[in-house]
C-alpha cells in the first residue's frame, strides 16, 4: 500500500513541510520520522525497518539480521537507540523516529564529521547503525570511557572498531567544546 505522506494525502492547506498543526494532531495518530508526520496505511505489524526502506526509501537504515543482533538498522526512537527490525510500525506510532538521514541539522552531526575525519568506513554498510548507536551513547554520556564505547553492541564485518572508537572520542570532544 502506498503510504500517506501529508504532501499527498492531506488537504492542500496542510501540504507543507512545516511542523504539524494542532488540527493534524487531533485528526490521527501519526508516525514522526525525522520531524515529519507520516500516516502509515499498510500492515501495522510491518517492522519499522521495512516501512522506512521499502515505503519511504529511507535506505540508510540497513537490514543485517532481522533479529536485533547486528544493529545495522539502529534508529533513534524518542532519542533512544532501537532496532528498527524488531519494532513494528504500530509500536512506533506517536513516537519520534530519527534515522541516519535525519541526524544532521543544517550541518553534519559531529559524529558524522568525526566518522569522515577518522575515515571509519570500509564497506560502510553497518556505519549508519553504528553512528545512531553512538549518538545515543553520547547523549547519555558526553565523555564515554573506552569501556563505555566498547559496550556498543553493533557488528562490523570489516573490522572498523578501532576507528569507530577514535571517531566517537573525536565527536565527544567536539560536542563538549560546543560544536553543534
Amino acid at each position, binding site marked *: *500500500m502506498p503510504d500517506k505522506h501529508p504532501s499527498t494525502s492531506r488537504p492542500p492547506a496542510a501540504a507543507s513541510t512545516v511542523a504539524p498543526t494542532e488540527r493534524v494532531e487531533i485528526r490521527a495518530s501519526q508516525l514522526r520520522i525525522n520531524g515529519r508526520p507520516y500516516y502509515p496505511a*499498510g*500492515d501495522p505489524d*510491518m*517492522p519499522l525497518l*521495512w516501512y522506512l*526502506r*521499502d*515505503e519511504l*526509501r*529511507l*535506505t*540508510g*537504515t*540497513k*537490514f*543485517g*539480521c*532481522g*533479529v536485533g*543482533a*547486528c544493529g*545495522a538498522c539502529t534508529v533513534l526512537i524518542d532519542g533512544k537507540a532501537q532496532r528498527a527490525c524488531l519494532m513494528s510500525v504500530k509500536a512506533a506510532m506517536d513516537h519520534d523516529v530519527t*534515522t*541516519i*538521514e535525519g541526524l*544532521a541539522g543544517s550541518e*553534519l552531526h559531529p*559524529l*558524522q564529521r568525526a*566518522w*569522515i*575525519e577518522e*575515515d571509519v*568506513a*570500509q*564497506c*560502510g*554498510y*553497518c*556505519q*549508519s547503525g553504528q*553512528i545512531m548507536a553512538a549518538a545515543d551513547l553520547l547523549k547519555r554520556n558526553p565523555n564515554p570511557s*573506552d569501556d563505555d*564505547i*566498547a*559496550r556498543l*553492541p*553493533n*557488528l*562490523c*564485518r*570489516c*573490522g*572498523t*572498531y*578501532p*576507528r*569507530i*572508537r577514535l571517531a566517537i572520542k573525536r565527536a565527544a570532544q567536539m560536542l563538549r567544546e560546543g560544536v553543534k
Partner: protein
Amino acid sequence: MIHGLSRRRFLFVGATAAGALLVGWRGATAQQKLPYLGARDEPQALGAFVRIESNGDIIIGARATEIGQGVKTSLPMLIAEELDVDWNRVRVEQLPYGYVDTDKGPSNRYGGQGAGGSDNIPSAWKELREAGAAARWLLVQAAAQRWNVDAAQLRTDSGAVIAPDSRRLSYGELAAEAAALDPPKDPVPLKSPERFSIIGKPTRTVDAREIVTGEAQYGIDSYLTDTLYAVMLRCPLLDGSIGTLDDKEARKVAGVRDVVVVEGPKPDAPFDGALATGVAVIADTTWAALKGREKLKVEWKPGPWTSESSSALAARANELLDKNENAVPVRNDGDFAKARKQAAVRLDARYEMPFLAHATMEPPGATISVEKDKVVLIASLQSPGSASQLISTLTGIPRKDIEIRLTRSGGGFGRRLKNDFVAEAVLIAKAVGKPIKLIWTRDDDLQHDFFRPFGVHAMSAALDKKKKLTGWSHRCAATPRNYRDRGMTEGKVPLYIGCVEPDDFPAGLVANLEKSFFAVASGMPRGWWRGPIHTFHAFAVQSFIDEIAVATKQDAVQLRLDLLGPPRHLKYEGSDQPGFDTGRLAGVLQLAADSIGWKDKRSDGHGVGIACHFTFGGYAAHAFEVSVDKNELIIHRAVCAVDVGRVVNPLGVEAQMMGATIDGISTALNLAITLKDGQVQQHNFPDYPLMRMAQAPQSVEVHIVESTDEPSGAGEMGIPSAAPALANAIYAATTVRVRKLPILPELKRML
C-alpha cells in the same frame, strides 16, 4: 555545458581476454588496437575514465566493484595523479559494467571490474595511470593549439596547463577543445614516482559523506519502477528437492502476488545457476513476502548427503591421512621419507579447519528487470562479468543488451564472486513478468553459501642433531574447493587448488619437502573466502613452525629467519609478482617482532605469538600479546606489519590491515559452520558470532613497509597470519596448544 543524458556517459577502453587493451567509441563498429583513446562523441570526455566540466570540476570514473577494499578511492587516485589535478576538485563516479562487443569478441570498455585475488591495484597500476596521462596529453595539446606553441614547452600543475611565460589555462577552459582531438599515437611517458603528489598520500574514502548520511547506495537499496519483492525458502538439505509443496496459506497473505518454484542444480551438476532448489514468494512488500514465506508448507526430499556431519567429515579426513593412500601429489622436493628416517627429532601435528560462511553485512540479493530484449540488473557484485554471462545464458538476451549498474557492496569476502542470487532473481522475474527485488535474510545467507572448505592438515617435520629442519611434510585432507565449478571440474585445475599452495612457505627452503592432498567427499557448496587458500593453510604452517621452535627450544622468529635465509626470489606460481621474495617476508616478520617487543621478558602471564605469510604478492606478519585469566582471553596488543610494495593510499592500506586483523581474530576465535544430518546448523549472528567491539583489541598497530616495489593489493594479505599468531600467543601465555579452529570452544575444552 553537457546535457544531462551524456553526463554519465564515459568512453570505453577494454581488455580482451588476452589482456591487450582495446579502445574505441561508443557506437563505433570497428575497434582500434591502441593503448589509449580519445573522445569524439563526448564533447568533454577525455578517454574512458575522465570527464572535465567547463567549471573545472574533474569527474573520474571508478571502474571496479567496491566491496570495502577501497578501490573506489584508490583506482581514481591513479588516474588523478597522471592527469595532474587537485584531488579536492575530483568527483568520483561509479562506472557501470562496461561490456562491449568487438570484432574480436566480448570485451570491456573499462578493463577489469571485478574484485578478487587482491588484483585491482596491480592490474590498474599501469593501465589507469596511462589513462590519466593520455587525458592530460589531450589537454596539453589543446593548450598548444590555442597558444600556437610547441606542446613540449608546456607543463601542467593542479588542473591547469602552464606556458613558459606563466600564462595558464585551466583544464575546464580546455576540455571542449581537448575532447575533439585525436588520442595520442604513442604511449605518453608517466610521471617518475618522486613527482607523485596523490599516490602515497593518505586519502579518505571518496564516499565517506554519503555513507555517514545514509545516502550511499548499496545493491539492497536499489528499486526499479513497479518492483515486486521476493524472498525464497530454500531446501535446507544439501542437494535436496521439493517433495510436496502447499502454498495455499502463503497465497492468502495480504500482498502476496505469486509463489514460484526455483530449481537448483541436480546433485553433482555444476553450480552455475541457483544454489539450491527453493520456493520464491513474490509480494508487494518485503514484509508481505516474508510473512508469506512463513506460511509455506514444504516437505523436502533429502539429497544424497543426509548422513553428512562435521564429526563424520573430520573422521573421514583423519582416516584418509592415516591410510595415506592414493594421495594427489602437490609438490615433492628431495626425499622426505629418507630425511624422516635419518632425523634426530621428528614432530607431527594435525590442525583442523572448519567450514566458514562469508556473512557479508549486506546479505546477497538483486534487483532486476527482465524484458523481452533487455535486462537491467542492480546488485552488489564482485564479478559483474560472470553475472552478465549468466543472465545471457538464462534469458537468451545478448550481453550487450544487459545493463548492469554497480553499487557499493556491503562487504564481499568472496561471496559475491558467485552470482547464484542473480540467477534466482532472473528466474523469478521471468516467471512473474515484473521487475523483482530479491532479498536474502541472514538465515538464508548462513544456511546457503559457498563455504570456505573444511579440512585437516597433517604436518610432519624432521630435524637433524643441530636442530636444523631437514624435512617437511604437509598432507591435507579437505573438501576440495574445486567442486562443481564449470570449467574447474573438467580436470583443468588440480584438485588441491584452494586448499594447499605448492610454492607456499617453506617450499624451496627445506631440502626434503612433500605436499599432498586427499579429497574428502562432501555435498557442501564451496567457494573462495577472503585470502582463500592462504587463510586455509597458513594456520597449520605457521602454528607448526611455532611448535617446532618450542619443541626444539629455538626462538620462533629466528627459526623462521634462518629458514628464509638471504633475500632472494623463489618461484611462486600464481603470483603476478616476481615470485616470492624471502627478504620481504623476513622484513615484515622482523618488523612485527620488534614492534611487539619479541625479546622482552614477560612475567605477568602475558604471552606473545607471531606468524607471517605471503599472499597475492603482499607480505604480512602478525604479533599478538595475550593473557588468559579465569578462562577469559584478553588481547592486549595486536601488531600487523605489511609490505605491499609501493603504497597508493596509506590510509586505505592501514584500514585494510586493521580490518583484516580483526576479521582474522573474529574468525579464528568464534566462527564455524557445522553440519548435522546434511544440514547447516547455523542460522543467524547469535550462532555465528562475529566479534563485537568489546572482544576486539582497542587498536591494531599497523606498520607499513616503505617500498618502491610494484604495488600489490591489500585486501587479503592481512588475514592469513592472524589466526596462527593468535594461537601461538595463547600457547605462550598458557602452554595450551590449540590445533582446531575456532579457538575459543577449544580453549574452553582444554583449559
